[in-house]
C-alpha cells in the first residue's frame, strides 16, 4: 500500500524546498540575516510562510535575479544584494542560500563571496556563510540540517576542550527550546543550543522594535562547538552528510549522541539519559517527579486515547517522535506520511509498533492526495500534523491536532509545548481530549439511532 497514487506527479505536497529549511535554521542565530540567491519569489514565499506560522516579521533578502542575471551570471546581483543588506541591517552573520535557479545556472557562490569579502574589506567584520540548497535536491528537512552543518563548518574552530554541551535541535517550537534548556540546566549551565529560535521567532513585545534580534545562538558559542564535551543531536534520521554533529565528531572528535525529538516517554528518557551520561550527574528528583506525573497522566487517559487511530504527517523527525508517543499510549499511528525520503523512519516506527501489536503504514516521499483516500479506508479518527492537512480535515471531517510546520490557520504555534515529559503530556492531553469530544458530542444521537430506532421498528 505504500505506493503513491501518481508516479510522475506530486499532488498537495507534504514538503517544502531546501532554502525554507535553511532559512529557519539561520533565524536561530544571533544578529543574522539571510539572502536567497535566486528570483524574488522564492524569498517572498518563504517569508510569508514563516511570518504566518510565527506571527513575527521575517526579513529575508533576495538577490532578485532577473533575465540578465540568469544569462550572464548573478555575481554582480548577489554582491549588490549583500552590500544593500549590510547597509540596512548590519548583521554579524549572513546566510547565503541558493535556489533552484542559482544552482542550475551554476553560480559559484563560494567564489563570489570570497571576492566580495576582499573587495569590501569585510574580513572579520561579518561572517558570510554559503549554503547550497537547490530546491530540487531534497526538502526543507535536509535544508535545515545542512544549513546548520555549514554554519558549524564555517564558524567552529580548533579550540581547546571546554565544558560545553552542544544541543542541535530539530524543527521544534520556541517553547520547546525553552523547555529543552530548562531540562538541560539540571545537568549543566554550559549548553549551546543550535539554532535557538526561542527569542528570535517568539520575541516579547517591547516599546522599541529592533529588526535584528539579539536572541539566537551566539557566534562565539558556535566557535566553541568544536571543543565541546559532546553533541546531542536531535535528528535520529538525518543522513550523515547533512549532520552538523557528525561533522564535529569527524573533524574535532566531539562525541555524538544522535537522538530522536524528546517527545514520548522513551525519547524523553533517552534525552535525559544522554545528558546524565555526558555530565556524569544523576537524574535530579525534579525530573523524576515530572516523569512520574507523565506516567500518571498516561494511565488516566489510556482508555480514551487507546480508541484513537491516527494519521501523522510532516517532517520525518517529528513523525517519528509523535508516532512513538502515540504507540506508548495505545493510540495507533495507522498512517505515517512524509514528503521527504527516509527509509529509517519506516524501520523504526514499524519495529516499535510491532512490539505493541500495532500495524502502521509508513509512506515516505509521499503527498496528501495519496494520504487522503487512505484516511477513510483506515478508519482514522484523528489527524496529527501541520496545517497542510487542512484539506484532508475538510474533506474527510476528521479533527486535526496541529504540530510541526507550517501552522498558518491557528495562532500560537510557537508557544505549543510538545517536548519533555511536560510537553508530551500536554500534547497527549490535547489528543485525548479531542478524541473524547468526538465520542461525547454525538453519543446521544448515536445511541438513539443504534438502539432506540430499532426498538421502534421491532
Amino acid at each position: 500500500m505504500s505506493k503513491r497514487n501518481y508516479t510522475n506527479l506530486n499532488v498537495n505536497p507534504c514538503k517544502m524546498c531546501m532554502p525554507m529549511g535553511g532559512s529557519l535554521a539561520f533565524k536561530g542565530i544571533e544578529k543574522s540575516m539571510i539572502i536567497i540567491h535566486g528570483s524574488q519569489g522564492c524569498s517572498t514565499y518563504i517569508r510569508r510562510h514563516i511570518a504566518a506560522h510565527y506571527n513575527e516579521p521575517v526579513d529575508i533578502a533576495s538577490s532578485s535575479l532577473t533575465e540578465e542575471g540568469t544569462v550572464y551570471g548573478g555575481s554582480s546581483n548577489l554582491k549588490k544584494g549583500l552590500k544593500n543588506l549590510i547597509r540596512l541591517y548590519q548583521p554579524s552573520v549572513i546566510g547565503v542560500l541558493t535556489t533552484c535557479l542559482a544552482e542550475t545556472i551554476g553560480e559559484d557562490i563560494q567564489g563570489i563571496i570570497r571576492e566580495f569579502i576582499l573587495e569590501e574589506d569585510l574580513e572579520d567584520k561579518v561572517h558570510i556563510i554559503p549554503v547550497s540548497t537547490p530546491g530540487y535536491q531534497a526538502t526543507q528537512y535536509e535544508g535545515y540540517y545542512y544549513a546548520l552543518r555549514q554554519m558549524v563548518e564555517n564558524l567552529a574552530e580548533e579550540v581547546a576542550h571546554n565544558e560545553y554541551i552542544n544541543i542541535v535541535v530539530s524543527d521544534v517550537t520556541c517553547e520547546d527550546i525553552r523547555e529543552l534548556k530548562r531540562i538541560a540546566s539540571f545537568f549543566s549551565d554550559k549548553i549551546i543550543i543550535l539554532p535557538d529560535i526561542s527569542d528570535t521567532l517568539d520575541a516579547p513585545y517591547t516599546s522599541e522594535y529592533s529588526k535584528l534580534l539579539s536572541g539566537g545562538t551566539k557566534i562565539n558559542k558556535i566557535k566553541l562547538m568544536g571543543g565541546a564535551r559532546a553533541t546531542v543531536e536531535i535528528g535520529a534520521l538525518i543522513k550523515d552528510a547533512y549532520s552538523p554533529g557528525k561533522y564535529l565528531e569527524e573533524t574535532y572528535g566531539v562525541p555524538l549522541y544522535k537522538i530522536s525529538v524528546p517527545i514520548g516517554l522513551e525519547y524523553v528518557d533517552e534525552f535525559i539519559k544522554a545528558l546524565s551520561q555526558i555530565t556524569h550527574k544523576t537524574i535530579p528528583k525534579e525530573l523524576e517527579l515530572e516523569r512520574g506525573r507523565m506516567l500518571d497522566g498516561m494511565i488516566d487517559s489510556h482508555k480514551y486515547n487507546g480508541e484513537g487511530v491516527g494519521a501523522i504527517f510532516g517532517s520525518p523527525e517529528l513523525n517519528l517522535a509523535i508516532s512513538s508517543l502515540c504507540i506508548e499510549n495505545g493510540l495507533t499511528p495507522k498512517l505515517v506520511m512524509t514528503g521527504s525520503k527516509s527509509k529509517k523512519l519506516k524501520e523504526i516506527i514499524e519495529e516499535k509498533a510491532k512490539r505493541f501489536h500495532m500495524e502502521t503504514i509508513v509512506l515516505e516521499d509521499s503527498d496528501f492526495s495519496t494520504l487522503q483516500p487512505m484516511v477513510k479506508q483506515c478508519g482514522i479518527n484523528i489527524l496529527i500534523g501541520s496545517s497542510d492537512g487542512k484539506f484532508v480535515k475538510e474533506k474527510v471531517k476528521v479533527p486535526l491536532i496541529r504540530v510541526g510546520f507550517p501552522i498558518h490557520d491557528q495562532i500560537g504555534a510557537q508557544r505549543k509545548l510538545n517536548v519533555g515529559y511536560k510537553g508530551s503530556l500536554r500534547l497527549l492531553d490535547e489528543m485525548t481530549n479531542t478524541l473524547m469530544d468526538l465520542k461525547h458530542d454525538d453519543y446521544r444521537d448515536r445511541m438513539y439511532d443504534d438502539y432506540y430506532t430499532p426498538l421502534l421498528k421491532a
Partner: protein
Amino acid sequence: MSKDPIILEDRKSFVLLNEKKQNNTIDCEKDSVSGAVSQRACVYCGARVVLNPVTDAVHLIHGPIGCSSYTWDIRGSLSSDEENYRNSYSTDLQEENIIFGGEKKLEAAIDEIVETLSPKVIFVYATCVVGVIGDDLVGVSKKKSKEHNIKVITVQSSGFAGNKKDGYKAACHALLSLMGEKKKSDEKDFVINYLGDFNLAGEAWIIKKYLKEIGVKTNVVMTGDSTCDQIENAGNSQYNIVQCAGSMTYLAKQMQMKYNIPFEQVSFFGVTDTANSIEKIALLSGDEAIMEKAKALIAREVDKTNAILDQFMKRLRGKKVAIYVGGGFKAISLIKQFRDIGIESVIVGTQTGKKEEYKKIRDLTDEGTIILDDTNPSELEYFIKQTGADILVGGVKERPLAYKLGLAFIDHNHERKHPLCGFVGAVNFIKEVDLTVNSPVWTFINEQGGEGYEQKELYQLERQSL
C-alpha cells in the same frame, strides 16, 4: 529625507513625498533592488494568483516542489461547484530531471492527470528552473493537446523573467488562448464579463447579485468561480467591466482587439465606489429599465449602509492609515474608502503600481503623504514612525511588522475570510477597522510600552492599595 540611511541609494527614486507645488514623479514598474527585502513575489506567483480560481481546470506546476507547495490554495477563492483548482499538482522535479531535462516527466504527468481526472483543460505553469533548462513547454502542450483531445495550455511564468505583473500578463494570455470564437447572437439582454474578481469569501457572488437585481447578466467572472466553458464563451459579451486593474486591464484590452468588446473600469470597494460603479454599468447598458432599477438599489443600499457606518465613524475620527498593497488600483480605492469613513492616508504604497496610478494617488492624497513603490520593512517602519500612522493595511508579511510596531492592522490579502467589496463589504471593512484600531490591547501598549513594570502608574496603584 534623502539623507536617511534607511533608504538605499538605489531606492531613492522609488520614494516620493507628496508636495503639491513640485511636480515630482516616482519611479515604478522596475525590477526589485537586490538585497532590499522587497515584499514582492515573482512572475509565477502573479500567474498563479490570477489563474488559480478557474475551478474545473487542472493547474499543473512544472518545476521543483517549493513553488507548488508555497502556492497551494493560495487564494481563498470559493467555488459553486468543482473544486479541482484547490489541489496543487506538481511535477516535483528532481536533480536528474534538471540535468537531463524535465519534458518526459511533464508528459507522463499530463498522461496521469488525463487518465485519472479527464479534465477539459490543463494549465501548465513554467517555473524558474524549467525556463533555464529549456524544456519545450509549448511543444509538449501541443503534442498532449492533440493526443488527448483536450486543451493543454502553457503559462509562461518563469520566475526570473520579469516581476509579478508579467505573471498577470502570462495568465491573461492563457485565458485568451482558452477563449473561443465569437458567435452570432441574438441576445437581447445586457451581458457583461466581470474581470478581476477572485471570489474571495464570495465577493463575486455579491456583485453578481447586484447586477442581477438591476437586470444585467454576467457571462463570466474572471477568474473567481469561473469554469473553462464560461471562459471559452467570454467573447460573446457586450461589455467588460474591470475591477482588479493590475491583473486584468491587459486582458480587457486584448479582448477589445480580438472581439471588439469595450471595457470600463469599476471598483466595488467602499460605498461611494460601489454606488458609482453600479450606476456606471447601468448607464453603459443604455437601458432605461436597468437605470431605474440601479437607482432604486443604490438609494436603498446607500442609506442602509451609511446608517451603520455612522455609528462607527464617531469612534474612528482622527486616525491615520498607511496602505501597502499589491496593485495601484486597489490602493486608490482604499484611499477613497478610508476617506469615506473619515480616515486620511499618510502612506500609500504598492508592489506593482503603474505611472498613471501613482499620479492618481498623488492627486488624491494630501500634501506630505509618503508614496512608495516596491517598498521594504525598513522603509515601512521608518515612515510609519515618522507619520504616526495608527493603522497599516497589507498582507500576511506586513501584519507581524505592524503588530511589533504597536499598530492596528487590516488584512487585505488572499486569505481573508470575509468579503470587503460591495455594500456588505463596506460594513465589514469599517467593523474590521474599528475592531483593530479600538482594541483594548493598544491601551496597554500606549500607556505602558513593552516594559510595563517600569511605569509610574503601576507603582502608584500598588501604593494606593496598601
